[in-house]
């Protein structure tokens, strides 16, 4: 690590997380003066330009890659036009024990005086809740599902390689061409557009296709549609200019700082920064340095425009950088060491950018600082060849050397990836940072193909956020909410009434005590499942339409194919592919619960259904014997036991059939994911005792992992069970494994770990991630957090500081089965 990197890393680690009101103030001021003066897309674009022109620019004298979303590292802006923090929210954020954000008095004052009065009742979230029907709110309050877009904008997306080939000026030229095509003589009859493209031989096939299908998700008249597309294109043009201005402001400041800098090394660095920012992103990058800076400006633009989920993500960073790297080494302008230093400066930028904190009740809960940028390493190239290169090795070295909280990274393991690289990745896994996670690149391609992507687009895709599959740079794939599968079974066991509140939420599916067969229970579950998914989809339609109409994202659209060609925004179906996901949670808990019921009630008659539901409603009080039976003598998911695993398939199929292929409002389709992030804790807290022996309020199983401690046959049995899920029909599944450090201590253990990974992927697995830390260490960290501040653990699709996560989540991680020597 160079001295420069050491200093930057230290400053990043030491920076205090805070809430900063500058963005809120600028946005509010702009809206106050201009509201109603422009069509929505142009209004959003001008507001963005206002931010680029006026926000405080920050450059650390040691920076090589520059740009901060706030006025300094970890100063986190707010997005009141989407969701406006109350004074109480701010005070909670400031004072909560974990993952707090400092809120200065003048921020409170600004909020009280300017921000809240303007946005109250006007922010998107306020209006959203006014539009959602009562039964949606009831199900939401009961914890049957969550809603992603009530706090943060759709995002979840990833850059592809076009950023490194296309400068902002090139994007502007594309916009000009698209606008020309929409000229009045042709634009009046959009249905004719497809036949009339005589003067664009240079356009790619996909773009022509996009131009011709004249999407109209909002159902506008031909005249309105043409006008709407013109507005969207003008908006994209404005934001392209705005980002150039933003970069130029950095160029100017860096030049000024260089002029006043006495240290020669810093002066040279600042000069280089200034030259770089004067060139990119207006023009396409020419060097490794320019490539990184180009991405970073685009990243900042995306996360400044809106607070989209999962920030933004460079995707296949090694593949994108490789040509610049090779060229630099060949012509002598770059060395491996310099490339590493630049990459480290780049990584530290991610670490400076925390997740924008939420509002409302959730502000009181402990969250995470992580904003889910998840860099892909390896994978496949567009032509199907192996994507691993020396840059991939370099990134692994950077990950190991820096081990900062952000960004996350994952290795996309294809059949073609050399064993040598996988072994090096396992070597970093063994360090116990919780990253990199590993993905099955061949399976990711297969998943995307099933969803209808072309094979090239699929190979250029990968995974982002936690585990979500997407066609990078060409797809708006949006997670809409978690779905609590065990809670739905609870309702099926209680005739549609939530036992926690006594409120009827679902249809009456009969008194479970009267069920004469297991199939009757499965039928009742299916009925309840459909009922609540219909409610969820109904709500999603309302919310997606709201974003489509009122919260366009012109910058994200600019860089996502084929928004320019369609003249439509990312949030209204402008992207080449438009997917909405619903994420199933608790598959382990519900599988084990069903297995226990089938086994003990219907197969062996050890307990009557009425007696079982009675015990569940009493949280097993006075029924410890029954609880022990359910817990210890039932088939359990994760043991390669078909008696349990086939019930997983029943639930999975029911969930899949109810969701997959349903249309969303953006002209795309719904698919399912199986991941929880930390929602299995919340969902567990609202779900009563379950028939697998779990007590009321305890966490549900996470991802597609077995119930904590239920897997007793070692890691291969877990992977075999997980492999029985037809994961190609998902857009991502999450599997956690915990190893004791001793189990990975020897060199050959790395080969066996690689063998486990390859074996699981051969069985059709999508993803695995590892915690390599002993339960004893974790317990010690609970007792003495002060001596374990830097202990990273894998939570869901990301790593977090163990001491920053809630006690419940800490306990849950400790209770996960530790794989190791079972001599």
């Amino acid at each position, binding site marked *: 690590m160079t001295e420069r990197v050491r200093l930057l890393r230290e400053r990043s680690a030491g920076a205090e997380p805070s809430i900063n009101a500058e963005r809120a103030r600028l946005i509010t001021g702009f809206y106050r003066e201009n509201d109603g003066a422009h069509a929505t897309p142009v209004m959003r674009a001008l507001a963005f330009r206002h931010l680029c022109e006026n926000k405080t620019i920050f450059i650390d004298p040691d920076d090589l890659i520059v740009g901060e979303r706030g006025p300094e590292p970890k100063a986190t802006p707010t997005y009141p036009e989407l969701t406006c923090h109350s004074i109480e929210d701010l005070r909670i954020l400031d004072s909560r024990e974990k993952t707090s954000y400092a809120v200065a008095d003048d921020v409170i004052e600004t909020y009280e005086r300017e921000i809240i009065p303007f946005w109250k009742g006007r922010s998107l979230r306020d209006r959203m809740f006014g539009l959602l029907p009562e039964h949606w709110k009831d199900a939401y309050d009961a914890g049957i599902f969550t809603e992603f877009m009530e706090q943060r904008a759709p995002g979840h997306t990833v850059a592809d390689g076009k950023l490194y080939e296309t400068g902002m000026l090139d994007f502007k030229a594309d916009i000009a061409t698209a606008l020309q095509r929409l000229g009045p003589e042709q634009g009046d009859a959009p249905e004719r557009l497809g036949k009339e493209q005589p003067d664009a031989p240079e356009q790619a096939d996909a773009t022509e296709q996009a131009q011709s299908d004249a999407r109209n998700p909002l159902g506008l008249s031909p005249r309105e549609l043409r006008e709407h597309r013109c507005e969207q294109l003008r908006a994209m043009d404005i934001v392209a200019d705005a980002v150039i201005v933003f970069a130029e402001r950095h160029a100017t400041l860096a030049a000024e700082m260089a002029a006043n800098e006495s240290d020669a090394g810093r002066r040279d660095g600042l000069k280089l920064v200034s030259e770089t920012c004067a060139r990119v992103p207006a023009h396409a990058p020419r060097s490794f340095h320019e490539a990184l800076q180009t991405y970073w400006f685009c990243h900042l633009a995306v996360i400044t425009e809106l607070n989209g989920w999962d920030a933004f993500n460079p995707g296949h960073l090694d593949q994108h950088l490789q040509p610049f790297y090779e060229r630099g080494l060949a012509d002598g302008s770059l060395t491996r060491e310099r490339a590493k230093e630049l990459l480290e400066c780049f990584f530290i930028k991610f670490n400076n950018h925390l997740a924008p904190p939420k509002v409302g009740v959730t502000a009181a809960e402990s969250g995470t600082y992580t904003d889910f940028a998840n860099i892909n390493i390896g994978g496949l190239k567009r032509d199907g060849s192996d994507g691993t290169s020396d840059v991939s090795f370099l990134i692994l070295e950077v990950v190991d050397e820096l081990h900062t909280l952000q960004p996350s990274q994952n290795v996309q393991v294809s059949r073609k990836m050399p064993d040598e690289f996988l072994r090096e990745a396992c070597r970093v896994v063994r360090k116990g940072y919780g990253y990199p996670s590993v993905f099955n690149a061949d399976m990711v391609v297969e998943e995307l193909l099933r969803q209808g992507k072309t094979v090239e687009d699929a190979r250029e895709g990968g995974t982002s956020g936690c585990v979500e599959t997407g066609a990078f740079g060409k797809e708006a794939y949006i997670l809409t909410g978690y779905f609590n599968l065990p809670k739905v079974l609870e309702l099926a066991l209680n005739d549609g009434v939530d036992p926690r509140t006594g409120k009827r939420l679902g249809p009456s599916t009969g008194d479970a005590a009267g069920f004469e067969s297991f199939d009757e229970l499965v039928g009742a579950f299916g009925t309840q499942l459909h009922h609540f998914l219909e409610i969820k989809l109904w709500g999603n339609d309302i919310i997606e339409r709201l974003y489509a109409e009122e919260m366009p994202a012109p910058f994200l659209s600019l860089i996502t194919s084929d928004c320019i060609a369609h003249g439509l925004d990312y949030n209204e179906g402008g992207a080449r592919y438009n997917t909405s996901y619903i994420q199933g949670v608790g598959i382990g808990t519900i599988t084990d619960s069903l297995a226990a019921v089938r086994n003990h009630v219907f197969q062996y008659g050890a307990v009557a259904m009425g007696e079982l539901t009675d015990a569940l409603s009493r949280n097993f009080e006075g029924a*410890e*014997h029954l609880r*022990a*039976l359910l817990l*210890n*003598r039932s088939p359990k998911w994760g043991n*390669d036991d078909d008696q349990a695993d086939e019930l997983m398939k029943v639930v999975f199929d029911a969930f899949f059939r109810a969701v997959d292929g349903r249309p969303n409002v953006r002209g795309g389709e719904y698919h399912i994911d199986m991941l929880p992030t930390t929602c299995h804790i919340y969902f567990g807290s609202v779900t009563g005792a379950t028939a697998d022996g779990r007590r009321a309020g305890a966490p549900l199983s996470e991802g597609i992992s077995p119930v904590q401690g239920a897997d007793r*046959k*070692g*890691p*291969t*049995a877990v*992977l*075999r069970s997980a492999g029985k899920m037809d994961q190609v029909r998902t857009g991502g599944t999450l599997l956690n494994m915990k190893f004791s450090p001793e189990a990975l201590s*020897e060199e*050959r*253990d790395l*080969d*066996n770990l*690689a*063998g*486990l990974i*390859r*074996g*699981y992927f*051969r*069985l059709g697995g999508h993803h695995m991630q590892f915690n390599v830390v002993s339960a004893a260490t974790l317990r010690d960290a609970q007792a003495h957090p002060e001596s374990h501040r830097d202990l990273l653990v894998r939570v869901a699709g990301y790593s977090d500081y163990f001491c920053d996560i809630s006690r419940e989540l800490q306990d849950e991680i400790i209770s996960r089965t530790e*794989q190791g*020597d*079972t*001599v």
Partner: protein
Amino acid sequence: MTGTCFNIQRYSVHDGPGIRTTVFLKGCPLSCTWCHNPEGMSRELELIVVQDRCVGCGACVEVCPNPPVVDPGGRSVTDRRSCLRCGSCVDVCVAGARRLVGQPMTVEELLAEIERDRAFYEESGGGVTFSGGEPFEQHEFLLACLRVCRERGLHTAVDTSGYAPRDVILEAATLTDLFLYDLKLLDEARHRELVGVPLAPVLENLHALDEAGAEIWIRFPLIPGVTDSMDNVNALGRKVASLRTRRVHLLPFHRTAADKYARIERAWEHAGLEDVAEDRVKEAAEALGAMGLDVRIGG
């Protein structure tokens, strides 16, 4: 044909190369005092009781036909001399604290279990290890299993004490890919005393296998005060140095077996023994290495 196992251990990574399933065949002619698989000594069914799991419900006491397990203060204790191994107590144990091991299994049933992890064997260069007990105690079953594994392209290893008929061992050599061959004490008298059988056939079989060109990894358990004297280490080194094979795995003693003795409610004379000191392991490894042997620590 059927055989009896007392455990089928998946993700076994210390009994040969790669990820393996280790099949522990029941029954052993030896009586090593330090044995860490005591439930594998007898060919008979064995009742295993994990006391930590017992919830003290007393169901086993009620159901036991002859004579009852007793329940002093909430925890059941089985009278092993009169236990019929009928499994009644296992059926009613809601805690899952009781298990009966050693039911007969056909070759096909065992292979079905083995096949479950084929993907992992193939991706890691692993396979199946037949251990025990002494696997040659059930040599017909063992050879049948080895034959089927070979037909199906599964890598196999046999973990043996070497105390078995010569012809059987040599036949196995034509069917398996690797022997994990235990050498414990190189002094005939000490061997008879502490292992319970003569040493000579063990060494003769080893030479025969070596001459037949079998792949052999020697496994040498380092038991404090029993096998870890430098005299014994050096004698072992000299013996192995006279062979074609060079690979020796040192298996340092660990106390984890104490649990297993508790589970079959049997006393263990080494219960008080400390884990072997790291220095001792290092010293032995260096001595053997100096004789030109390829020494590995662990299985």
